[in-house]
């Protein structure tokens, strides 16, 4: 007899029910959304041929530089490539991992970002451009580090969990992590979902002024939002005074969040970009208030597509960890002992990461060489940039920022509607008036 799996009660749904019944607790995990979602893969570039002329692949210049955050007279970030490292906390990541990300980003002339836990000396020392996240929890927040930062990123939310606070389970609250967060060692730490001293864009405008005053107006202030209502949130971030907006789609990773949150809250990165760009264009500040997009960026094609849809730069988090060695086959035996396998490991909340990246265990942390890790991250960032340039030249662009939505078509009706580009081979943009 042929066995047939139910599409509704498939193996994942059954396992989730059984797990809930066994444990009485919801599933917490890392990584981002796993369900299939409309994404950059559903878009294709229209390379030049007769009607447009391509640039010569290895000879003619295709610029990649981007300036972030100069709108209000602060000293902006001047990045050589439009790919930055997203905010990930010391606590979620080990100190050597944070250092390696700084080394890798600095080697290619881009920035990296602190996270929900403060700034470590290692990452500051090894990052030429370091963005300091200003979070609801304020863990580790102090004015000395604020003044040491090259930019400040006020975090409202992240794509994996718009509207939710963070968590860091006790396994990862080592003495050093606890001291930086002013918490008892080993407790399950929960971060709030709202800032302690402001709520809403009217108050945020005053808060941004405070951050500017504290830094004598030298440091740009970014605002990071999780993608849910990107049109309104982007407009409000601009009205509140943001120098740049960081927009994180639902494929964005996380170290520890309820699975129900990761899979069911927020909108895909692909669907978030155009509404955010609409808001910037309506306010007359597109490319003046920069848009940094993150959430599931993996390849240079993703970079080029995000920029073509209107982003000024992208951020990578999960992909940077993979470049560092996360989920690498060399740890296959260790992953197996944890009930996982290379390519499937997602228990970043658990503190037993065999790759030594999402852990505070001294022995595991020692597995990651920050110099070698930095070299790998730099390699990866270079490849992303060169791939994006390859596509841009094929589209006849002498700078990545000259890519535009008209260079794209969609493979699916869903992607065509979300990205507002025609279905390939047609002139049809679903939903367009």
């Amino acid at each position, binding site marked *: 007899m042929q066995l047939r799996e139910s599409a509704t009660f498939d193996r994942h749904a059954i396992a989730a029910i059984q797990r809930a019944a066994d444990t009485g607790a919801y599933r917490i995990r890392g990584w981002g959304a796993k369900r299939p979602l409309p994404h950059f893969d559903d878009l294709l570039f229209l390379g030049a041929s007769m009607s447009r002329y391509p640039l010569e692949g290895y000879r003619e210049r295709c610029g990649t530089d981007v300036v972030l955050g100069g709108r209000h007279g602060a000293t902006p970030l001047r990045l050589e490539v439009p790919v930055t490292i997203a905010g990930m906390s010391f606590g979620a990541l080990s100190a050597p991992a944070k250092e390696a990300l700084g080394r890798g980003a600095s080697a290619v002339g881009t920035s990296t970002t602190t996270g929900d836990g403060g700034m470590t000396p290692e990452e500051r020392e090894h990052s030429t451009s370091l963005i300091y996240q200003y979070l609801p929890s304020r863990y580790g927040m102090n004015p000395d580090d*604020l003044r040491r930062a090259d930019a400040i990123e006020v975090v409202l939310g992240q794509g994996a969990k718009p509207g939710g606070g963070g968590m860091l389970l006790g396994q990862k609250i080592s003495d050093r992590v606890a001291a930086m967060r002013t918490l008892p060692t080993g407790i399950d730490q929960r971060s709030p979902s709202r800032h302690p001293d402001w709520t809403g864009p009217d108050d945020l405008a005053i808060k941004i002024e405070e951050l500017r005053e504290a830094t004598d107006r030298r440091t740009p202030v970014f605002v990071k939002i999780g993608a849910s209502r990107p049109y309104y949130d982007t407009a409000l971030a601009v009205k509140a005074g943001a120098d740049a907006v960081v927009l994180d789609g639902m494929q964005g990773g996380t170290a520890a969040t309820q699975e129900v949150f990761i899979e069911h809250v927020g909108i895909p990165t692909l669907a978030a970009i155009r509404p955010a760009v609409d808001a910037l264009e309506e306010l007359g500040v597109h490319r003046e208030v920069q848009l940094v997009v993150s959430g599931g960026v993996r390849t240079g094609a993703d970079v080029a597509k995000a920029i073509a849809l209107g982003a000024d730069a992208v951020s990578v988090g999960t992909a940077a960890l993979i470049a560092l060695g996360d989920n690498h086959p060399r740890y296959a035996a260790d992953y197996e002992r944890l009930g996982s396998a290379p390519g499937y490991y997602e228990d970043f909340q658990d503190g037993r990461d065999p790759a030594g990246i999402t852990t505070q265990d001294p022995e595991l942390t020692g597995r990651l060489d920050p110099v070698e890790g930095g070299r790998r991250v730099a390699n990866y960032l270079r490849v992303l940039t060169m791939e994006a340039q390859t596509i841009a030249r094929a589209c006849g662009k002498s700078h990545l920022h000259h890519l535009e939505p008209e260079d794209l078509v969609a493979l699916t009706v869903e992607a065509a509607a979300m990205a507002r580009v025609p279905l390939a081979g047609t002139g049809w943009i679903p939903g367009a008036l």
Partner: protein
Amino acid sequence: MTTTAVTVDLAARPVRDLNAALHAPDPAPRWRVVNPAGAHNVAVGVDAPVAVQIDGPVGYYCAGMNQRADVLVRGNAGTGLAENIMSGSVRITGSASQSVAASGCGGLVVVDGDTGARCGIALRGADVVVGGSVGHMSAFMAQAGRIVVCGDAGHSLGDSIYEARLYVRGAVASLGTDCVEKPMLGEHLAELAGLLTWAGRDEDPAAFRRYGSARRLYHFDSANHTAY
């Protein structure tokens, strides 16, 4: 030796000028700010051993992130007075709005009047002494430091509190999740007496009760689902 205070009139000059002067290397030791008229971000980010007296009401985030300075507000203050204070002191003769000393790490904040909601939210080591009463959800998720309330406390005092210690003389409308009354031992009376003296108050420490974390939320437990 007494030095004459440098006077800054905020009716004539923007807050930017004041803060820039306070951030300059080796600022004058004494400052007097007049006509603040509820302005925001007055004396923010100061990191110098200066005394700043502000005559009148201030808006949001007055003396935010303060380091080493002693700031006195003769009037009322808006949201986020002395937010993220690191050291030094901030004192106000009137009342303060919500989120006094939010995430404050060190130093002393004294409010002679009342405070709004969420006084000492996410406190990380600073000390707060309130002569009057505090609003609801005060000491929410407070991690470290001490909060002394000479009047009453609003609803849900100390909700989800970590290791901060609370002393309240008057009535507590209700305690928040995981906040409990704790015995007042000799060491606590001594600590409280020191705080009251530091803040220049003469209440009797024996008239206060102590509250803190029951530490039942320190580890996730599905039986606590209604508490989250």
